[in-house]
């Protein structure tokens, strides 16, 4: 969700082009920074900002990479890091970027898990209530992230039907994802197969 595109002032980099080309190490550092600033989401927006301000990627190249990250299986933000890293510094760049974007959260999550799950007899009631409250907001976060995804899919020919059927199959009937994926994608490919005149 880079709705922040218009809201971001251009990063005024004085043209003292002493920017060294990205190496795996500098990419790792960049993505550690992205992870730390991206608490609560918005990682792609932070990634874009960090790359453009260093002059390592054009806006077009970023937009294309971002779209592609949406299309590959797996978590968007991490796929984006892998793709940016691969584009800028090859295989090692991809590895370094992924490690960079994952490490801060991994350490934080481990610490929190040890504290919250290591309690004999479960959590204190106050903390349980707090987590329940946080879970309600987390659901809202998921819904706000869902809206743009659903809207884009809705605009594709045959989209609403596929979206609703997939929702019913997975959410209501709790079917296995793989058969639903095959049927849903197969129907979509049939509708949009190349060579048909719209």
């Amino acid at each position, binding site marked *: 969700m880079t709705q922040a595109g218009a809201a971001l002032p251009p990063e005024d980099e004085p043209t003292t082009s002493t920017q060294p080309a990205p190496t795996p190490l500098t990419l790792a550092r960049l993505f550690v920074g992205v992870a730390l600033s991206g608490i609560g989401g918005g990682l792609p927006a932070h990634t874009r900002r960090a790359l453009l301000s260093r002059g390592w990627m054009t806006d077009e190249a970023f937009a294309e990479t971002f779209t592609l990250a949406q299309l590959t299986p797996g978590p968007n933000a991490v796929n984006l890091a892998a793709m940016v890293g691969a584009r800028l510094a090859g295989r090692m760049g991809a590895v370094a970027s992924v490690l960079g974007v994952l490490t801060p959260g991994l350490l934080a999550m*481990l610490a929190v898990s040890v504290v919250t799950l290591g309690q004999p007899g479960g959590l204190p009631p106050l903390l349980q209530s707090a987590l329940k409250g946080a879970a309600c907001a987390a659901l809202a976060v998921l819904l706000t992230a869902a809206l743009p995804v659903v809207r884009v899919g809705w605009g594709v020919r045959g989209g609403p039907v596929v979206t609703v059927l997939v929702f019913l199959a997975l959410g209501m009937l709790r079917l296995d994802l793989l058969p639903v994926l095959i049927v849903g994608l197969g129907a979509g490919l049939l509708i949009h197969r190349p060579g048909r005149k719209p």
Partner: protein
Amino acid sequence: MTDLWEFFLAFVRLGLISFGGTNVAELERVLVLHHSWIDARTLANGFALGQLMPGPNMLAVTHYGYAAAGLPGALTATLGFYGPTALVSATAVLIWQRHSTHPWVVAFRNALLPFGGGVILAGALVLARTSVNSWPAALLAGVAFLLLWRTRVNSAVVVLGAAVVGALLGL
């Protein structure tokens, strides 16, 4: 104690079949219903914690791994969930640079988008069933949604605020 290899493969699969966001519905089906590695409460809690962590939201898988099998479980789940997909992505971007205008690539994109919408909505439904089990909880979720949707406030702030409200209400 779970068999770590089976655990690893389950998370590899979960990573590879989550598209354009979080597939909570499938996480619940596999981790809670099928293997009973964690319970529904842990699933919802982990998801909430994931919203607060620096980095990708689905670090919830680290929490699930830890809940099921301690530190080895946490590392196994994280590596399995993120490693293979990152590899696929890095490979895809290099191939893509050569074939981006191919008509079948465009068709694939159009087929995938509505599917992604259905997946993410199903995930929201699964989370709602666990998290929204009282009127105050429903109201809190509604207020949080309006805040996130209508204002530019950081989502971590909203989640933390909701945690405070939850503690005060004794949800």
